[in-house]
């Protein structure tokens, strides 16, 4: 299974990606890199970005992780982290007591420096250096004290939110559960698509329209956003011009096409969903997809359903969105244990409830039929929902910690 056309790139996780990154690095060095050799030891040159903030040059390598942080200070600041090791390195600034990370730089190239912006509250921190193919090294713990004296404390109390990273290991149970959940949904999808095909081939077009809706919502409930199921999703649920799948059938069923002309389309759809069911048994889902899916299903629903773009006659966009919400709720339920300490779950729950309630109120009305105020309300609840869901993907990004 592909992780979607909107790929997430995690050089530190995927072995293949690492190889590519190293090859790219060699060519990069030969061409002089972006900064040129003059600033290769960038730690000593004047900071180009954030000139008004305190800067601290810090070494990143297995042998000197965090070296250079000698004058700890609270508040907004920049660490200019330089990879003084031999291969690309992920850098975390964390609270050693909890393992929670306040800042990260990924894939820092050898002999290169990048700014790490962070607002530090008083506390204890350390750098962690995760060089490729080497065990993580955590540098010395540094105590950051609050500013002294009156009138200087207004911003020292709150720092950048610290979040305990999620590892591949953490996500595997939920990923497997998601895979099983989808597998459990597929038989009814196949059954309902088969019933649709039967209705079409028997010339019962009124019945076919009803069954089309049932089968299509089955599929939408799976949360197949942005190519989650790869090329077969295009065949099953792509835009109508592909002349296959649900939307080609929809157009025909709601625009007076003959049963005989639609029968091959229905047969192909049935064969495609059967193929999906067969292949799903051997799929190995990337754990990365869960966090991505949690917000992309609704992003996809806004782009393609609330816009009315995928309405080819059935006027069922809002029912589709309801099915998409069901799929999102399933993903959220599976990753919930990972989210409780990492995101504002009550706000997410409230936003999900508000979205459901709005759909109930609108009762399946076609988006184009809504009044200006109805449309604004719909946009408000779904706009708020995707804003609330955005941190889910951020914190469920797969990270290396050891």
């Amino acid at each position: 299974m592909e992780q979607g056309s909107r790929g997430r790139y995690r050089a530190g996780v995927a072995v293949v990606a690492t190889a590519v990154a190293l090859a790219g690095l060699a060519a990069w060095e030969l061409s002089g890199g972006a900064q040129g050799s003059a600033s290769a030891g960038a730690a000593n040159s004047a900071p180009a970005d954030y000139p008004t903030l305190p800067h601290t040059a810090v070494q990143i390598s297995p042998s000197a992780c965090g070296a250079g942080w000698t004058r700890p200070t609270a508040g907004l600041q920049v660490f200019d982290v330089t990879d003084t090791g031999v291969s690309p390195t992920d850098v975390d600034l964390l609270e050693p007591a909890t393992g929670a990370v306040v800042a990260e730089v990924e894939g820092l190239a050898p002999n290169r420096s990048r700014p790490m912006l962070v607002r530090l509250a008083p506390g204890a921190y350390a750098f962690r250096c995760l060089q490729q193919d080497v065990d993580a090294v955590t540098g010395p713990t540094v105590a950051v004290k609050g500013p002294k004296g009156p009138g200087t404390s207004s911003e020292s109390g709150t720092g950048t939110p610290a979040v305990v990273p999620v590892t591949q290991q953490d996500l595997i149970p939920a990923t497997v559960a998601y895979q099983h959940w989808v597998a459990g949904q597929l038989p009814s999808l196949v059954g309902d698509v088969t019933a649709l095909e039967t209705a079409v081939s028997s010339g019962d077009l009124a019945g076919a329209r009803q069954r089309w809706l049932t089968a299509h919502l089955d599929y939408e409930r799976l949360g197949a956003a942005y190519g989650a199921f790869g090329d077969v999703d295009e065949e099953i649920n792509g835009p109508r011009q592909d002349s296959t799948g649900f939307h080609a059938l929809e157009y025909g069923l709601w625009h007076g096409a003959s049963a005989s002309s639609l029968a091959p389309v229905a047969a192909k759809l049935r064969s495609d969903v059967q193929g999906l069911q067969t292949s799903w048994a051997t799929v190995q889902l990337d754990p990365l997809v869960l966090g991505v899916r949690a917000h992309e299903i609704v992003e996809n629903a806004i782009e393609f359903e609330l816009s009315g773009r995928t309405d080819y006659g059935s006027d069922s966009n809002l029912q589709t969105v309801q099915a998409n919400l069901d799929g999102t709720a399933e993903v959220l339920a599976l990753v919930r244990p990972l989210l409780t300490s990492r995101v504002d779950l009550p706000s997410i729950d409230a936003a999900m409830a508000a979205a459901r309630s709005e759909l109930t109120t609108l009762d399946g009305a076609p988006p184009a039929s809504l009044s200006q105020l109805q449309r604004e309300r719909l946009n408000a609840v779904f706009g708020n929902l995707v804003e609330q869901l955005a941190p889910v993907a951020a914190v469920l990004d797969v990270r290396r910690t050891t």
Partner: protein
Amino acid sequence: MSATSGVGRRSVLAGALAAGAVAGTVAAVRNGASPTTPAPATQGFHGVHQAGIVTPKRRCSAFVAFDVMAADRSGLLDLFGTLTDRLRFLVTGGVPDPLGISAPPSDSGVLGPTVPGGTLTALLGAGASLFDDRFGLASAKPLRLSTMTAFPDDDLDPTQCGGDLLLQLEADDTDVLANALRDVARHTRGAMQVRWRIDGFASPPRPVGTPRNLMGFRDGTANPDVTDSRLMDQLLWVGAGQGEPAWATGGSYLAVRLIRMLVEFWDRVSLTEQERMFGRQKDSGAPLDGRTETDVPNFAADPTGDVIPMDAHIRLANPRTAPTADQRLLRRGFNYDRGTDANGNLDMGLVFCAFQQDLERQFVTVQRRLAGEPLVDYIRPFGGGYFFVLPGVRDTNDRYGSGLLP
């Protein structure tokens, strides 16, 4: 064009022919009009009054009307707090807060890693609909705030009228506006939604004097002097003794009118006819009885409109009489240009903005007097609304509407 508007046009033509003989023979009468004084320097976010009224216009603007989606009073309170925080940051500038691995970046990055200060001017207004029964604010409604109703020559589209809130954003570069809008929208998606939006631009002086509108005429010549604080207290600011709720002190009223100009039609009209519709010379901006832009027209010396027609725009809008002196308002409009219509004609015109102390006494009265003026054939007012401009946010502890929602 309707039949009646066609008549209006003919009558102007006739007047223009009659006036030809005297054009240029009338001595300019003038006078002690104070030259346009440089406007005060741009203010920061805080102040007794909001910026964006007496501050100089910036080159680009966005007018965005919102409907409040917040369900109740506390939601509205949160919204005012969020708007204050975001606009204070966007106006003041600074480094956007890093969010680490907890969320996507807090800032779009469109303006670079540090948001430059002083590049944005923001103004927030409230429409009459905000004071309905949703938030329990009916009794706090500014006395003179109402919903804009159509004037005789209007062709209003309800979806481009009104709004619970209006945000007037100005900047010298459009990326600043784009960033500000993205930021504000992102932080308020659930609490308010865009009802209508129009972007405008301020033209530079061509070649000198008051900038021109898209009909080629100078627009805003007769504005009251914004550096005259006594005059501003008489014409612009809401203050004590006006019967307004106490919280409204320091505010003002804004009439926004989205006015399409039928520029193709206009360009097919003779210069004399154009000038007689406005009552000014197109090149210099001088009134037809004057020599320079700042000359004040002497309507009393032209009682039958032989020089400046009785229905010329400047004559109807500002008769320059003692009884109409308190009807003057501060025009601060922006030109707009946004695509084409089904006829292939350009959709351009004016985001007319007028600030004042009393909508009825000032804008509405003037607008009523303009009903049927010859110019109406060439313009089509299609949207806008009336808004109460909230008092300024005083300092870092204050927020928008602190007096309204304590």
